[in-house]
Every structure is written in structure tokens, then in C-alpha cells.
């Protein structure tokens, strides 16, 4: 099994007619993802390489039975696009777009929670989700992942996610699902959402967690692991040597007022029994030894 998406998932692309949406949407289809629809109010009735375009998410869901959506629209339009997908009946929304204002993200988190509690938003500003061999939604290069399990991956960083997939593939370790939750201040899906799903997924036997400086998401994840997880976890935190007060690329990656340091996160994770590597390779080695002992 896998979490969030599998070979049954039918995906609608909001922004499929744009250059990024078209490129990644068709790559996702080549990977085997069921890319069933696109939306664009001005281009309803047309198609992108055979994928039908609808006026809005509701029309696309009605016609194609799409149950997931992938958003590539520009940042100013993301807030409306997410709400449109939720209203249209989509249950899992992946927002790839970066540069979304933090207040829009906070609104989306609270609006979905109140009005559409069964809808899960992944992102914004995330690489997406891949259940290798079954479904790839977003911008992850599918062939760097080995299908089958037993490892689930959850990460706040894009390229480090790819690095993790690759490290595991070179060690011949398969992945059930790899989720990139994104590095923004208010991600729709948290580490804990993913950890809980992996804990409940019978095919996932171990989890790799990749965090970075800023916020307290890793500390909260550590608490969850300590009290709710039976499966072993290996981890890595980027930004151990990042200077305080400097934003390191991601909007959320900043050490401010002594909070959000890598040291505190590593300590919390180790205290919860997580095997933390000091670089991605070391974390991969920890995971290899965990898998060997399963």
C-alpha cells in the first residue's frame, strides 16, 4: 500500500495549460499517473495533449471523477484555486506553486479545516507526492525512486527529498510513498499528518524524516513519534550551521530569537528514538541498517 495517492488516484491539474503545468503534468502522465483533466476558464472544451480542459474544478470532477488536484497556477491565484478544488469535491490537493503569501496559507489551513475537514492540502511550495510505481503528482523525478517499500519518506525540502530517494535506491531500498510537505511557514500537511498515515500503512515499516531549521514542526513530530509511533524512524535536519537571523532560501528556514535551531530539533528527535544522521548520506546509512534489521 501507500499513503495519500496510488494507482487509483485520478488527478486534475489546475494550470495544465501553462508552461510549467503542461511540462510536469505530462511528465506525471508518462510516469503512469492518471492525469484525467485540466482547468482553465478561458480554454474549456480544448485539450492539452489529449487531456480535456474544463472551466473549473467542479466541472472537471463531475465529468472525470477526479479525486485529487495538482496546482501550478501563479502565486496570486493559489488561494482561490485551492478553495475551488475543495468546493469542486476534490479530497487531496497538491499545491506546487512557490511564493504564496503566508496569510493566504494561514487562511487556507483554517478555511479547509472549518469548511472542508476531509480535504487534505499538501504545500504550497512543495515538490509533491510520489508513490513509486503507482502515482507521481508534482515535480519529483520518478525514476530516482525504487518502488515497493518498506520505507516512507516525509520531507520539508525538495532536493533533499530527491537525495533521500536516490540514497535509498542506490542501496536497493524501496519506498511506499514520499511526501514533500514544503518549506513554507504554514504548510497544509504537517510531518504529523504524514507520520500518522505511515504508522497506519501496513506496507510502510520504517520512516525517513527530513527537516530543516525554523519553526517547531520537527519538535512536534518528535513528540508524536515518541508517543504514537511503533515504526522506526531515521532523520536528517538541514541547517545545523546556519547563522541566526538569516533566511536560508525557504521562507520558513530561519533561526530567530534562539528558536528553530537544528541542535534543538536533533535533540528532540534523538530523545524520541529517531536515528539522526549529520548529513544525508549518514541518514541514508541509518535507514539501511534499520531496514536490514526489519
Amino acid at each position: 500500500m501507500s499513503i495519500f495517492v496510488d494507482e487509483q488516484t485520478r488527478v486534475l491539474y489546475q494550470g495544465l495549460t501553462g508552461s510549467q503545468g503542461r511540462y510536469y503534468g505530462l511528465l506525471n502522465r508518462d510516469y503512469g499517473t492518471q492525469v484525467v483533466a485540466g482547468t482553465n476558464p478561458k480554454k474549456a472544451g480544448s485539450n492539452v495533449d489529449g487531456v480535456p480542459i474544463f472551466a473549473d474544478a467542479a466541472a472537471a470532477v463531475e465529468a472525470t471523477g477526479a479525486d485529487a488536484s495538482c496546482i501550478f497556477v501563479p502565486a496570486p491565484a493559489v488561494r482561490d484555486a485551492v478553495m475551488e478544488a475543495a468546493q469542486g469535491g476534490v479530497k487531496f490537493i497538491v499545491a506546487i506553486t512557490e511564493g504564496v503569501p503566508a496569510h493566504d496559507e494561514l487562511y487556507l489551513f483554517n478555511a479547509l479545516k472549518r469548511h472542508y475537514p476531509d480535504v487534505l492540502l499538501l504545500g504550497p511550495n512543495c515538490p509533491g507526492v510520489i508513490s513509486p510505481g503507482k502515482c507521481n503528482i508534482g515535480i519529483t523525478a520518478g525514476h530516482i525512486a525504487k518502488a515497493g517499500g518498506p520505507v516512507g519518506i516525509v520531507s520539508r525540502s525538495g532536493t533533499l527529498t530527491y537525495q533521500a530517494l536516490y540514497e535509498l535506491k542506490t542501496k536497493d531500498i524501496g519506498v511506499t510513498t514520499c511526501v514533500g510537505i514544503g518549506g513554507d511557514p504554514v504548510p497544509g500537511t504537517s510531518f504529523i499528518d504524514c507520520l500518522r498515515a505511515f504508522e497506519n500503512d501496513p506496507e510502510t515499516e520504517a520512516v525517513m524524516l527530513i527537516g530543516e531549521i525554523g519553526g517547531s514542526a520537527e519538535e512536534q513530530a518528535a513528540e508524536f513519534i515518541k508517543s504514537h509511533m511503533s515504526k522506526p524512524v531515521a532523520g536528517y535536519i538541514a541547517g545545523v550551521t546556519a547563522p541566526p537571523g538569516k533566511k536560508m532560501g525557504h521562507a520558513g528556514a530561519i533561526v530567530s530569537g534562539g528558536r528553530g535551531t537544528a541542535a534543538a530539533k536533533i535533540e528532540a528527535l534523538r530523545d524520541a528514538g529517531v536515528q539522526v544522521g549529520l548529513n544525508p548520506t549518514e541518514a541514508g546509512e541509518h535507514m539501511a541498517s534499520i531496514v536490514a534489521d526489519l
Partner: protein
Amino acid sequence: MDLFEHQGKEFFTSYGIPVSAGEVAFTAEEALEAASRIGTPVMVKAQVHTGGRGKAGGIKFAANQAEVHLHASNILGLDISGHVVERLWIEKAAEIAEEYYASFTLDRSAKKHLGMLSAQGGVEIETVAATNPTAIARIWVDPLDGLREAECRKWVTAANIPAAAAEGTVALLRKLYRAYTEGDADLVEVNPLVLTKSGLVQVLDAKVTLDANSEFRHPQYRQYDATQPRDEREQTAHAKGLQYVGLDGSVGVIANGAGLAMSTVDVVNQVGGSPANFLDIGGGANAEVMATALQVINNDPAVKAIFINIFGGITRGEEIANGIVEAVGRVQIDSPIVVRLDGTNAAQGRAILEPHLSEALLMQPTMLDAARRVVELAS
């Protein structure tokens, strides 16, 4: 984007929040002119993106024009925690009866807006939080509901704001919340918020951080871009659209993706080196952006060796390798470069780099090996 105090006050004023009258001055003469228009006594305040201005002598009371000139001359050029004062804010001195604290920020854990209010202002809120945590009244606001008046009143009562200031504080906080949300701020902090002897509740100091991602809603925010604290290297890189953060070591770092770039900085440190920068060139890593990145790094005289750490995802190894070869051919680089290329079609990419390798362009199979080699070359 961090705003200077005076920019923060202009921002507040646009939402009807009361502040003292004031003007910006870049020279002692301008300070004198401003003070004569405003009328002494005035405060002469250093405008820098750091705290602790008062302790450093960056905020002075001037009873008359002679004192304005004296303080303005002394404060301009002053170094406050590495920030040299280039501008002043000359402000009508307020007659302060009491000092409070108020702020709104985004609580990432609670996924709500967090308001903090205290009757103990004028000191660092961290100090109040540590020594007398019950003196801070907190309120969590759901963005869907906003800050309702009744909730705001309860909050003001909980913070023990005296009756004489309660009405004014409620009114100010509601405007402050509006400025914070409608203005897409990451933080609005008023410390101190004051009750004047004439009974007015107003802002005395303003700390405002705006979300650069919201510029499409607030095109006027672009003006703040030019006053962000950046060193010369950061300024150049920023102008070229690069995600660059200056550090103080000797190993230039180029990586694709923020996480990998951060990780590269870590690994260089772990093997005993010291990075000169953090630089994320994004997922694509084409020749154009690679050449620009190399130029920026090459201009940094502290750089002794360069580490290019690329993981190919959608972008294939051959494209990345061609990009590196082309960029190195286009830019005259003074320091040796160590490349680590992994991921999609890494073998093909390495084969392209192979014939170009020399003492100036080296390649290592793993991130750790490359870090060790580049640190050797830099020392």
C-alpha cells in the same frame, strides 16, 4: 522585509494608527530643519535594522536646536551591532505616562495569528516572558473570524491595561490587527505602546516585517527592497535574482535547492571548512544561472575554492554538466572548483565533465568527498 522604524510608522499611519509627528534626516543639517518644522523638544532616533538602539546611544532627547545638532552628528555614523547609522528619525517628543507592549505575529505551531499584549512595555518582551510570563496576555485569532471587539476588550482586561488607557488601546489594537492582516505583515510590534500625559494611546516605536511574497497585492512594498540590510555581495546577487546569503568563510558554495544548499554549508563546516556563502540556484541549474552564480562567487575576495553541489532531478546530468562546462568557459574563475554531480543521468553528466577536468576543475563522487577536497584546496 524588515522596515525601519519610520517606515513602520508610515505603514501604521496609513491604517489610522496614531504616531508622533516626525521626519527622516540623512544629515545633521536636515535634522535641524526637521526639528524646526516639528518644534522642539524632539527625539533623535537612529534608523537601523537591529534592536538595542537606546543602549548603544542611538536614541537621544533634544530639548533645543543645539542638542538636535549635537545628537544628530554623534548618532550618524554610529555602529550599532554592525549596522552603521545612515538615517535618523526626528520625532516630536511625547510626554509619556505609561509604557505597554503590543504585537501580532503568525503562530506557526497553532496555525493562528498570535497577539501579545502587556502592561509592561519598553523592555524586551523576551525578558518579560522569562521573568514574569503572566504579565503577557496572549490571544489566538482565527483569520476567518478576525479580531472581534468583545474578544479584544477581554484581552486588554487580561493584560491589566489601566482603565484610563483601555478604550484607546482597544481602538489601537483593532487598527493594528487590520494593518497586520491587510498589510500582509509577518510581524507588527509596538514597544512601547504609550499612554501620554494628555491621555492619548499611541505608538512610540514600530517594528514591522512585511511578507515579500505579498508584493503582488502591495506594489508599493518594492520601495522597501532597497533599504534591506544586505552586504555588497548579497546586494549584487539579489540584483541578479539569486538566492544568496553571505557568510564569512572561504569556500564558495553553489547548490540546487534550498535544502541541499543548506546541507552543503553544513557538510563543509563538518569537515573543518568554512563556507563563504549559501547559494541556491534552483532546480534547473542551466548554463546561464550557473555562470551568473560563478560570477557572484568569484567576486568575493575571501573565496579560495568553490564547491558546486548539484543533484539532478527532472534536469538531467548531461544538461547540468554542459551548463557547468559552458559557464566555466564564459567566466574567468580565480579559484579551483570541485564538482559533485549526482542524480538523474549522473554517469552521462560526469562523462561530459571528464575531458575538462584539470587542477582548476575537479570532480568527486560524493558530497562528503567533494567537501573534504574543497576544504583542502581552500586552506
